[in-house]
């Protein structure tokens, strides 16, 4: 039976580096994909993922008082991703799939959540990614965390360190913009 997150966290706080490795193994994909959805390319997602865990390691002593480690990890990752986006003046640099080596491209057929659905087509995913890239950092993160990752508005408020009303407002604006950009795709889906 795998060890619980609080138990691993307690071991890590007490100086057990093996527990840190295990925590990273459990959260690294979550952080990577969140960063990818926010920044739109592998190099930046990799940087966010690594820097997030380096920062968490350095904050080891503060973790004793952290009630929700998942929220804490996403908060650290979100802050760094927002910093990166600001450095790029809010412009995410989405990769052109045709330029990526085939080893890096995902075989979407293996990741289908509902086999047969047209939404698994990677070009649809590219459309969504490009639509997300038009949003300001916080709106983008809010939309990803809520509509893609499924976190509640209250959880997102903790992760992004803002009032829940701000989360609602950012989500509403993000959805309105995404609906406009993805209008053609949504119309096809509704038919």
């Amino acid at each position, binding site marked *: 039976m795998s060890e619980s997150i609080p138990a691993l966290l307690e071991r890590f706080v007490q100086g057990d580096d093996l527990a840190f490795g295990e925590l*990273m193994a459990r959260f690294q994909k979550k952080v990577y994909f969140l960063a990818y*959805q926010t920044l739109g390319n*592998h190099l930046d997602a990799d940087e966010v993922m690594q820097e997030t865990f380096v920062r968490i390691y350095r904050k080891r002593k503060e973790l004793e008082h952290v009630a929700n480690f998942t929220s804490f990890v996403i908060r650290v990752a979100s802050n760094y991703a927002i910093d990166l986006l600001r450095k790029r003046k809010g412009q995410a640099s989405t990769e052109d799939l045709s330029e990526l080596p085939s080893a*890096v491209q*995902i075989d979407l057929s293996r990741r289908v959540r509902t086999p047969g659905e047209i939404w698994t087509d990677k070009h649809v*995913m590219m459309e969504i990614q490009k639509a997300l890239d038009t949003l300001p950092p916080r709106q983008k993160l809010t939309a990803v965390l809520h509509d893609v990752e499924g976190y509640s508005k209250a959880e997102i408020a903790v992760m992004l360190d803002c009032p829940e009303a701000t989360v609602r407002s950012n989500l509403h604006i993000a959805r309105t913009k995404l609906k406009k950009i993805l209008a053609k795709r949504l119309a096809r*889906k509704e038919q």
Partner: protein
Amino acid sequence: MTCLEFRSILDRYVDRELSTDEMRRADEHLTGCATCREELASQQSLKQLMSGYVPPVQPPDDYWDQARDRVLAKTVLTADREQKQTDTLVDSHSYMPVMRSVLSVAASIALLAIALVLGSRHDRPAVVLSNQPHQVIVTAEMAELLKSPDGGPLTLGDQRRIGQASILMGGPGMVGRFNFLPGLLRIY
């Protein structure tokens, strides 16, 4: 419920956050409003589309282990190395405070010894030369050295050398107690 009211709760409707009463009123409005039904369908499609979103690229399988190793190299291994370096530095410098103490004590003893030796060589009080036109204070040793064979007044050259010696040796002060200095200055 008006269309405007419905639009203001659309997000909460889609996210299933409405109370039973709000939901009933919204559904009543939807029954008679095609425009809001369309808006709702669009919003639900977007939510469904987003929930099925996965990044279009994924790193190769070995990426995760490699990335983890890189993070561990920056954190755990670096911390170990820094700890070892600190330990080594502590080991190599651990004798420094003791050495400083030993050297301080040794220096204090040496200064005390020098003071005792010098002090022991000055066992006579300073002397006021009485046979001079002006009062001149010198050490007893110098007074002996400066005695003229005929007991007469000092020559101008003698006085100049006494002046130099007084400045350099501090008269009856500490430096003046070095009785070899008059010899070096050829005061006799």
